[in-house]
């Protein structure tokens, strides 16, 4: 845990989880579109973060939401899965000349195409895990819920990037 994991990420964790619990709990579009914004914390972590640390952070974030949602273990399981897959997806999406040392999972640094591919794959996996663990069996409504919620969360993540991760700060 060196300078790559600073106070900024702790603030982001508290902010996103609080947003999730206090506000987005009540915001469900057409009873199919759920927004699990707390995973933005995991998405925005530095690219070269320790894999094991990332897994524990995933568990922590999911577990915190679980405690408030009374869905013991479901969000934790999905977030750990996301944390496990993240390094692999990052590998898959490596730019031709590799990641720079000061690259971060940021829309302005990595560009639209990279960021959308990265975010949408991970969000879709996470949401699919959440909804299928919740219902155990499978039906078509779950699939619609996954697609719609992925879209919803994805849009919110992009909005967050555009609003709070300015071009200027990314360059620094």
């Amino acid at each position: 845990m060196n300078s790559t994991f600073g106070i900024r990420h702790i603030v982001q964790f508290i902010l996103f989880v609080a947003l999730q619990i206090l506000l987005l709990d009540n915001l469900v579009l057409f009873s199919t579109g759920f927004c699990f914004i707390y995973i933005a914390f995991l998405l925005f972590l530095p690219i070269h973060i320790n894999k094991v640390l990332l897994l524990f952070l995933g568990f922590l974030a999911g577990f915190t939401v679980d405690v408030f949602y009374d869905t013991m273990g479901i969000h934790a399981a999905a977030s750990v899965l996301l944390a496990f897959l993240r390094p692999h997806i990052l590998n898959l999406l490596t730019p031709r000349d590799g990641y720079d040392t000061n690259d971060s999972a940021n829309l302005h640094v990595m560009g639209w195409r990279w960021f959308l591919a990265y975010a949408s794959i991970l969000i879709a996996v996470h949401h699919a895990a959440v909804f299928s663990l919740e219902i155990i069996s499978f039906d078509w409504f779950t699939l619609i819920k996954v697609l719609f919620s992925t879209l919803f969360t994805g849009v919110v993540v992009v909005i967050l990037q555009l609003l709070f991760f300015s071009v200027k700060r990314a360059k620094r």
Partner: protein
Amino acid sequence: MRNLFAFIYRFRAFLVFVLLEALCIYLIVQYNTYQGAAFFNSANRYVGRVLEFQSGVTDYFNLATVNSTLAQENALLREEVLKYRQANLTDSISQMDTTLLVATDSATVHPFSLHAGRVINNSVRRNNNYLTLSIGTEDGVEPGMGVIAPNGVVGRVKTVSAKYSTVTSLLHSQMLISAKIKKNNTMGTIKWLGGDYRTAILDYIPLHVQMSKGDTVVTSGYNTVFPEGIVVGTISSIVREADKSFYTVKVKLAVDFAQLTYVYVVENKQKAERDSLELNAGILPNE
């Protein structure tokens, strides 16, 4: 040995991943099966405090609805009190010599008492919904008690802490409530299949039973959780399916779960006695 450690070190991320997932699965299974075992849930003291703060802000927006519900309930209670008072005036039995009267039997002594609680967390759109109330063991709430709102059945207490309690809502995939059709006392089971939070299913109604849309469904009183005759809802559709020996009855729930603000936890003073009697007789308590 060194090779083993090297192997473990190489696959440490995967091993940690498997361990954490196993822990999560264990938590899911444990939380869903064993009632009242969970410590980490919204009845936790610190979690409850955050949720209370949140509802402290949002409750102001429903004040009008809360007021009108309370006023309606007050009117209903007042009407009932008047009825009793009227009956009392015309009834001269209390002026009779007490030696002539036998003391009332235990069935007429009301065994239920209600604890009012504020709903500080609520969900209706998930597959398994829970509520959190701002009353706990200090106010006499215990796991397994029934929860009702002024206009109908809400659910059942799952876990309790000193100041907060978590309630399994009727809108939960594994919640079953023993109910009957008020008109002809046919018993069935209320369950929720997910989706729309205003409708549930009344199951196990045999095909010979006569009923019609709009009939009231109430709790049966066959278990110790709910008193008899608490409204669950009204029948909204009756379908007879060719391959089933029971009707598929849809019930429009009386309680609007999205609008819950105050509920009552039902304490049955004779629960222990009745449960132990039924258990001794070899009857398993139905949930």
